[in-house]
């Protein structure tokens, strides 16, 4: 029998036999693929609570596994291994080692909110994806993703000046992730802009930092935000027993 969602089963647990007869029935070949039974013993019973302690993960307990999230998912359509419904299942079951098999792609959620729109239980799967990606980073299972580095660069600028300037963000992000600004396609885009608009190009390249936008009298707000963020981060580390 064909196996639905075969991508969820590890290749080493799929068995086919060239010559196998059971009770007089020939079950050889691909048509008779077997799933190797196994016993899971390494549950992390705190997993759901830890995800729920991070922003976005609060409502994971509501999930009833209908699969609307995966069904509507933008990234799933590009990469079938990106499966929010399955990850929510693993987290709720405490199957940490299974979840870790996908640790390098969970951060790729594009926050299009199609899942949150479709979810009949208000799980807010988009938030759960963010909480899970942060959990992986906090626990040291993955390095900070490029997305997280971008978020941090952005937030630092907002806390400092109240506004962002895209040229600075892009340069700061490329520096943090060790990427070259002179990539072929960026150069091509710059060329097309330069044909009509040297000033905009200058802005993007950051030559206009002299006009760096900022909100007047921002320092008190910036400090209050920073204080709050540090407080929250300490709370989250405590909830994950990282203190």
């Amino acid at each position: 029998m064909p196996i639905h969602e075969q991508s969820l089963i590890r290749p080493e647990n799929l068995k086919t036999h060239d010559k196998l007869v059971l009770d007089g029935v020939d079950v050889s070949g691909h048509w008779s693929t077997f799933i190797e039974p196994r016993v899971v013993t390494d549950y992390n019973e705190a997993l759901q609570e830890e995800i729920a302690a991070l922003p976005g993960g609060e409502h994971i307990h509501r999930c009833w596994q209908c699969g609307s999230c995966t069904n509507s998912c933008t990234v799933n359509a590009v990469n079938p291994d990106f499966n929010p419904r399955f990850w929510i299942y693993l987290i709720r079951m405490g199957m940490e080692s299974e979840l870790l098999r996908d640790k390098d792609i969970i951060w790729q959620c594009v926050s299009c909110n199609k899942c949150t729109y479709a979810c009949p239980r208000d799980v807010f799967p988009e938030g759960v994806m963010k909480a899970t990606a942060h959990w992986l980073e906090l626990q040291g299972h993955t390095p900070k993703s490029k997305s997280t580095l971008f978020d941090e660069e952005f937030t630092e600028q907002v806390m400092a000046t109240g506004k962002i300037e895209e040229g600075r963000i892009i340069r700061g992000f490329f520096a943090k992730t060790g990427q070259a600004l002179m990539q072929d396609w960026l150069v091509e885009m710059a060329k097309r802009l330069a044909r009509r608009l040297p000033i905009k190009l200058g802005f993007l390249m950051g030559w206009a930092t002299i006009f760096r936008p900022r909100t007047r009298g921002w320092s008190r707000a910036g400090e209050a935000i920073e204080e709050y963020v540090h407080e929250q981060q300490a709370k989250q580390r405590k909830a994950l027993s990282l203190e």
Partner: protein
Amino acid sequence: MNKYRKVAYYPGCALEGTAHAYNRSTKEVGKALGLELDEVKNWNCCGAMEVKNVDPKVQTYLSSRVMSIAANEMGADVVMAPCNGCYHNLKKAEHDLAQDAGSREVVERISQKAGHATYRAGQVETIHALDWIKHGLGEEGLKRKVKNSLKGLKVANYYGCMYTRPRHIFPEKDKGPGTESTSQPHFMDDLLEAAGAENVDFPLKTACCGGAHTLSDSDISTKLVLNILRAAEAAGADVIATECPTCHSGLEMHQVRAEKVFGEKTKVKMLYFTQLLGIALGLSPRKVGVHENVSDGIALLKDKELA
């Protein structure tokens, strides 16, 4: 008087940077239509997706400060944000402040330390630039002002993610005739049709352009953008009308990237809907910043004898 005819204007960071053309065309269209904009004084970033990912309640605070200034310092009833990200975040803050005591507490605390009045849910109504023109003037009023009909221009209307999702932060949508739909949005279609354009049947109106990871996961963004560009071309569109700076620059950047990195060339052009309306109102392409776009809208407008 119609409360949408004079609104507090929150352009947001992108409209001061890469989306300068959207800012410019919005103001010019407002002028031409007799709709007034009063810029929110000394505004700050709404928090965007990035601050939300670091801490959602900080994003709520940032958006609440903008609404607080509009309400408490300018006495405004309505705040208009043309950027989908800003619009979405102000709506989300409004929802969270009405529904969640924890959010109210954090906003109160930071507002006090920052030294300004705390925003209370219900003080202002946040709208998008589409609502502003649709409710401030309407299609009939717009039709009367059209001097350079977009007749013969085939348009795919692209709304992106943040204008309709998730639905709980848009309680005014999906309320039947005359209101916006979260599954089949049509306000941009309505306005451009009134300006004479021929809207094509475009199935990816609310598809995602991958804007959240434009630079951090470029290959996925390029694939998602290519889907959108291809679908628009297959539907026969000359141009994709946009109403979000992140979508617009994502489509433009990844159109170039698809060509340079994957050798996938597409011809469809991108213009902000305000640029298209401006052209229809008889403004010059330069006035509405078409020369600031990456994709060559001027060649298209000339080809269609609109410029």
